[in-house]
């Protein structure tokens, strides 16, 4: 039974952390206030004015910490209770996949859905790139065997001219190969983000609980402040940034995928390949100019957003979270620079 309660407590700690750590913090605060009140009384009996003044100041500080706890409690309730799905959906920053009823409305679920959707988009794009390369290799080379023709007509062997027309230049496939390499390499960083984001709820619960409890005690106050900054940075600022940045990227990708990932996709790829082949260009153009330009625009936009989401956005998010954590931790505790290690690795 005890084991069951413990397990339930641990699960609740992760899913609804404020329900667990709020009572713990409040009990700790009340206990310390009780101790300080006793010291205050003893100092009165002992005639120690300095101890009495110190106890009074410390009680005020504990009360201030309790106010801080209440503020963070309100923040936690907001994070879990607020409809972020509705908020981002109302301003057009929610991708179609995240509008599904199965996706919860809290910040963490919306952020996870966004990043997961982006990773899915990248996998689709890789497949599309591979498909385009594969399609290109199916365009046949035209071999003109003049020697065999002369032999067939005149029965004279070994005299004539041969030529081979290779319609798809080798650099097309080389380029597609590089593209796939780059995308898969950068995709690793995206997966790292997904893991970090998956842990953000736990980090928020853990660091915030440690921070708020530690901030109550005098000797661990600065350490507690640092933990609060870390918890707020990784648990609140980071998911918020993911929702915003990948919201912009995903919605744009959704829209442009609708342009080119349709039944006309293979037709469009054929058009592109065919337009690069001089002896077919103009003669066979399955799509109109406007439709082709719109398709090309969709493809390049999709690739551009993928590049931004893979290369620019992760570093931007990390840098912003780092900036927030450094400055906030310095203001309420010890300066923490969690990106120092990562910076050195990079």
């Amino acid at each position, binding site marked *: 039974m005890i084991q069951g309660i413990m397990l339930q407590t641990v699960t609740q700690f992760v899913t609804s952390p404020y329900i667990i750590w709020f009572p713990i913090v409040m009990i700790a605060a009340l206990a310390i206030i009780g101790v300080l009140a006793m010291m205050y009384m003893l100092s009165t009996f002992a005639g120690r004015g300095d101890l009495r003044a110190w106890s009074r100041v410390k009680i005020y500080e504990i009360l201030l910490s309790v106010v801080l706890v209440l503020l963070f409690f309100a923040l936690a309730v907001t994070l879990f209770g607020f409809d972020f799905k509705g908020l981002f959906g109302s301003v057009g920053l929610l991708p179609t996949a995240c509008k599904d009823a199965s996706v919860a409305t809290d910040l963490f679920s919306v952020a996870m859905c966004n990043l997961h959707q982006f990773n899915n988009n990248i996998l689709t794009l890789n497949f599309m790139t591979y498909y385009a390369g594969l399609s290109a290799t199916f365009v046949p080379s035209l071999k003109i065997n003049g*020697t065999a023709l002369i032999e067939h007509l005149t029965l004279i062997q070994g005299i004539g001219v041969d030529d081979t027309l290779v319609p798809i230049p080798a650099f097309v496939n080389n380029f597609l190969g590089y593209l796939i390499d780059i995308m898969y390499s950068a995709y690793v960083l995206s997966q790292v983000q997904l893991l970090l984001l998956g842990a953000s709820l736990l980090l928020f619960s853990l660091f915030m609980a440690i921070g708020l409890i530690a901030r109550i005690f005098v000797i661990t106050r600065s350490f507690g402040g640092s933990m609060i900054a870390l918890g707020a940075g990784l648990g609140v600022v980071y998911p918020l940034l993911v929702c915003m940045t990948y919201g912009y990227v995903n919605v744009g990708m959704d829209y442009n995928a609708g342009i080119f990932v349709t039944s006309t996709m293979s037709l469009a790829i054929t058009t592109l390949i065919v337009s690069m082949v001089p002896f077919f260009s103009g003669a066979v153009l399955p799509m109109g100019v406007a439709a082709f330009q719109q398709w*090309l625009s969709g493809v390049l936009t999709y690739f551009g957003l993928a590049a931004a989401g893979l290369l620019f956005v992760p*570093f931007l998010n990390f*840098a912003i979270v780092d900036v927030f954590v450094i*400055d906030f931790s310095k203001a309420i505790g010890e300066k923490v620079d969690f990106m*120092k290690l990562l910076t050195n690795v990079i």
Partner: protein
Amino acid sequence: MRNLALAVLVFLVIGASANASSILNLPASFCPGMFPSNGLTNGMTTSFSAAGTYTGLLGIALLIVLMVFSALGIVYAFGYALNMESLKAFTRTEVPESVFNVILICLVFSGVAFAGGAIAFVANLGLVGIESISSGSAAPTIAPVPITSTRDIYIAICSSYIDHGVNVALDNLLTTSLTAFTLKSLMTFKVNMAPSWFGVSFQPFMGTMPISNLIAMQAGMFDAMVGLLIGVTFMLYLIYSIFPLFLYVGVLLRSFPWTRSAGGAFIALFISFYIIFPALLYPFSLYMQNVYAALGVSTGGPAGFSLYGMLAAAPLSGMAGDAMLAEISGFAQTVSYTAIQFLGLVIAFVVALDLMGSLGDLLGAPSLSSGAHANMLLKRVI
């Protein structure tokens, strides 16, 4: 069999007369769709950050300061009513900070207005300079865009990149593909002089292989150019869409003592990347297209490189003469074209990052100071 072979040949020659370059361009609506004033256009939205006009940003930023003033007023009222000197002292300390915020916002937006004029001035200087080094008679065909809103400058840079960079590169990629096709076909041309399979056979155009390699390298350069310009355009889109939020958050966070330094960091990021970064890129993008306009550089078309062009004109001398020189010249232009943009990008980043560090120091944000890891991280990324 003979009829079939003849039919294929006729088909080849007729089809080669077509010019597909006109369709291989991005539509004119691409950039306005990329930086919408508000709402969803081409899947792009800025409604969350209200980006688009300086007036919109100014209004929201001042509204936040007004809210903070109201909150401080309530705190002071409590302090007065409960006779708590500490609360009153806190309010007295914080009011000047909010006043400083208002001054900061005014300075930011005055700076933006000034930057608009300065950008146009610099761009015109660039245009005059290019005219003087060319024949002097070339009229500027591309005038600087008057900057009246945030959107103008972003669209102007995007248009330079797309109309004079990506579309040109796509046209050239088509030309390059056609040239590669022609060269490859010539290289595999083989003459057999071996009756009863005893004698010689030779490939007279195999010597064009160096040019073929150059063509492949040039195609890679075109790919890089498209990638670079599209990448920067989408980076600008994210800056345009997201960074205004940093101003609002920055102003809000600067209003409280605990989060003042973090707020300063956000404001420094906004000023450096939302205002200064595109302002530095803009003259470069304009200078690039002016080079092309004033010097009258022609990128040519694919018709001259098509099989039809080769057959109709001088197929053999063509590859050794003008077409080859045009190809080499085009390669050099492509490299310089990309290099100038890359240079502009690097300069804009370096200046924006250094400014960010200085502003971080000024606004009390240690995370952005020169040598801080967040600053180093951004520098290393770039």
